[in-house]
């Protein structure tokens, strides 16, 4: 469903701030894969998601979503394939627009926006049902401006919007990091449910090792712009936090050795 082939990206090339964010990255997701992504700061997790979303062009390699090579497409055109939820709850919704207007914007993702009405009556019924599943009572406040909602409510709404037009790929960039623990747990549970119900293929970045282990069917660990660990299926189910920490030390250690080999 998603293929990253030898993707590389360097920020500020040729300056003292040069940063090799992705180096020869390879990742292949099957349909229905729910992959959690962990790694230290600057490991390239968000850079990888932004490369897929098309926030900027990559320096090398190709990105293929469900057979479509999107490497040359700008962000707004890739949006046809991708649903996204950001770390900042303020980022995923338009605050001065109503809840139903926000949903209507998401409903038209990947379609031509013409001169027919922005929200139709039939859609409202659909939105009411979808909002009802959130269990936040938003279905009775559909004409309220989104700016009046709490961070957790906005993040739940953004999730709903990301999945409203079934995306080929769902990108969750630490989408619970800015929420309090109780709300974060709720939003995470909701993410699980939405991914399972629609059979979505998803990439979820998290800083929480426990979440990374308990959610999804596959886990990848990144370091210095590459994937250094890739665990799936049964092996992942047996994984513990201690295992992960040990593997992190092990794999990054191995890598240092290989670096030394390369340098010598």
């Amino acid at each position: 469903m998603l293929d990253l082939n030898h993707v590389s990206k360097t920020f500020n090339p040729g300056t003292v701030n040069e940063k090799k964010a992705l180096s020869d990255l390879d990742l292949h997701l099957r349909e229905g894969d729910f992959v959690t992504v962990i790694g230290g700061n600057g490991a390239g997790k968000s850079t990888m998601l932004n490369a897929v979303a098309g926030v900027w062009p990559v320096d090398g390699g190709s990105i293929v979503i469900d057979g479509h090579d999107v490497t040359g497409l700008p962000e707004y055109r890739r949006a046809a394939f991708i649903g996204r939820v950001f770390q900042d709850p303020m980022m995923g919704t338009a605050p001065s627009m109503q809840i139903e207007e926000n949903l209507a914007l998401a409903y038209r993702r990947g379609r031509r926006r013409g001169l027919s009405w922005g929200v139709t009556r039939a859609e409202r019924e659909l939105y009411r049902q979808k909002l009802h599943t959130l269990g936040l009572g938003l279905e009775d406040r559909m004409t309220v401006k989104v700016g009046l909602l709490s961070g957790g409510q906005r993040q739940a709404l953004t999730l709903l919007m990301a999945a409203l037009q079934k995306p080929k790929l769902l990108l969750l960039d630490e989408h619970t990091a800015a929420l309090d623990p109780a709300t974060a747990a709720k939003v995470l549970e909701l993410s699980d449910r939405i991914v399972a119900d629609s059979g979505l293929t998803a990439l979820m970045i998290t800083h929480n090792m426990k979440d990374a282990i308990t959610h999804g069917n596959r886990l990848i660990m990144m370091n210095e712009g590459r994937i250094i660990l890739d665990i799936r299926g049964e092996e992942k189910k047996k994984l513990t936090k201690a295992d992960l920490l040990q593997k992190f030390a092990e794999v990054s250690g191995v890598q240092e050795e290989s670096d030394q080999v390369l340098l010598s």
Partner: protein
Amino acid sequence: MSAAAYFAALNPANLFRAMPGNAAQGIVWGLMALGVYLTFRVLDIADLTVDGSFTTGGACAVMMILAGRPAWAALLVSLAAGLAAGLVTGLLHTRLGIPAILAGILTQFSLWSVNLRIMKAAANQAVSVDKFGMFYKATRGRGFLLSSRFVPQAIGVGLALAGAMIAVLYWYFGTEQGSAIRATGNNPAMSRAQGINIDSMKVLGLAVSNGLVALSGGLMAQFQGYADINMGRGSIVIGLAAVIIGEVLCDAVFRRGANFAVRLGFIVLGGVIYYLVVGVVLWLKLPTNDLKLFTAVVVALFLAVPYLQKKSKSSFRQAGRAAAKKEAASRA
């Protein structure tokens, strides 16, 4: 002159006589303010193109009428010229990466030359309503749509046009495309993630806005019977004044938020109130040269109100004082 003599010289009848004319002029500026609202509030861009495109609209309308074309056709040309001006600003901004405010200034600056070319190198061009007549008279639909010589009709036509314009804008910004423009101004990152080409939406919004502004310029030229190279100077400030007056009133009347069409109606009303106030200033024989200073001060004050209100509720100075007070109390 003594105070008594000054007040004796003020004739209230003169004020009342001038009011309808000022109101008619205010309606035309209110239409212009709708264009400013689209960029300033909906797109969140301060577009300075309007100072030039208002004049462009006036120049096109006058030259078309002088060439013997019907006044309504002249307005369509004004509209088209304004759309083109907005398009240029939009492309300078989105395709060449020039900051929006600078892009607007560049277009406005260049339009001065363009406007002179349109007016055949004359700083002003007059067009007589006596020669061309009013459209509702026996002019076979060719005459002026409005003129300061026929004020009640001008108010009627102005209100009808304002109503039509608000209806069109209400419809357009309710469509999928209009919603995408609103989203672009509201949250560009989210808009891109939802598949909206925000560059196109900005260009579209700037074009529509300037089209509306140029159309009002064309109406103004008909109303006053001439186009002048300086007629658009400072129109961004007058437009902003109308937007702000309209919004303050709208929020005062509808505390829980008003429908988009009602809001637009209040913007036009804002233009009318602005010109009624100008009428009073003129009637008071205050120095008219100071009018622009006065307007700028009022606009600056109203633009500052939301910020100052927020600060009055919480500021570092207040927090500091409160802390010092508590400290002093605990020591005593």
